[in-house]
């Protein structure tokens, strides 16, 4: 803070030695980064993602529109890659759970969310995949089916689905559940792969300060 007159304010005087100055600067840098990321402390990783998975996800996203660009009003934007936790899955049904931390999404608006998943098909076959968006609404204990996306798949590989506003809202609340259901299941194993290199993920574009925006209905 600058005053109209008087000496410049400073964080330290000439009394600090070099090592103390360095410690002070490191502490300042740490606190600055955490503040800007809306974190109270550095995250402790409970389930670290392997470098292989990370590399695959980033390669899949290569060429897609980059979300983290600074706007004129200096709003901070984020692009989040959330890897799925699989549960209650069978050959005919793959359920994917995604968690978004409160500290990351608190007061933020998810602008776009894309699901990316790997499908393995026998040669010369097609498959229709039904992607169901299940939402756990506030003050509710059961998942509610909100929307479905039908995707025609004619080759093995990575596929993506642009999820709608319901999925965006669920992600903003912190939890998104998706079900992937092949419409005609003839194979002996699931066509949707979830191994280390093929783990499904959601790529979301987030804007900070969403809750403060006025919406017109």
């Amino acid at each position: 803070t600058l005053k109209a007159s008087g000496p410049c304010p400073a964080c330290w005087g000439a009394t600090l030695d070099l090592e103390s100055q360095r410690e002070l600067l490191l502490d300042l840098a740490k606190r600055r980064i955490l503040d800007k990321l809306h974190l109270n402390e550095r995250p402790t990783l409970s389930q670290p993602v392997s470098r292989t998975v990370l590399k695959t996800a980033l390669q899949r996203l290569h060429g897609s529109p980059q979300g983290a660009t600074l706007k004129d009003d200096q709003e901070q934007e984020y692009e989040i890659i959330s890897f799925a936790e699989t549960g209650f899955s069978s050959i005919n049904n793959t359920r994917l759970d995604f968690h978004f931390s409160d500290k990351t999404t608190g007061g933020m608006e998810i602008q776009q969310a894309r699901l990316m998943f790997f499908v393995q098909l026998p040669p010369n076959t097609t498959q229709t995949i039904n992607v169901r968006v299940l939402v756990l609404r506030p003050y509710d204990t059961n998942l509610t089916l909100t929307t479905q996306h039908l995707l025609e798949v004619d080759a093995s590989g990575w596929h993506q689905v642009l999820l709608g506003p319901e999925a965006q809202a669920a992600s903003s609340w912190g939890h998104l559940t998706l079900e992937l259901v092949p419409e005609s299941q003839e194979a002996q194993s699931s066509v949707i792969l979830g191994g280390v290199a093929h783990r499904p993920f959601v790529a979301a574009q987030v804007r900070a300060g969403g809750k403060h925006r006025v919406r017109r209905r």
Partner: protein
Amino acid sequence: GIDCQGGSSMCCRQEFFVDFREIGWHDWIIQPEGYAMNFCTGQCPLHVAGMPGIAASFHTAVLNLLKANTAAGTTEGGSCCVPTARRPLSLLYYDRDSNIVKTDIPDMVVEACGCS
């Protein structure tokens, strides 16, 4: 702006790099490997007040000289060595749910300093 070199006490940009491995943050910050924070340090004599760093032209030099002469004998101070240019810091990191987040934090890296 000018970068600090040994012996100068004038307003300048001091480079300061925070190595994420050194502070034990390399496990959750994927990229970059460190933060080039930098900071501004040094004195701002009255005749360079209002100028980003050093005088840019003959005209500004004359104006600054006039300013210094006019202000001589009045209250000292009021001009500080502050950042005049900054750029964002791009981060790729894991949040506490092990999601991967990419963001650009504005105004994090000091690129140039000058006297306010």
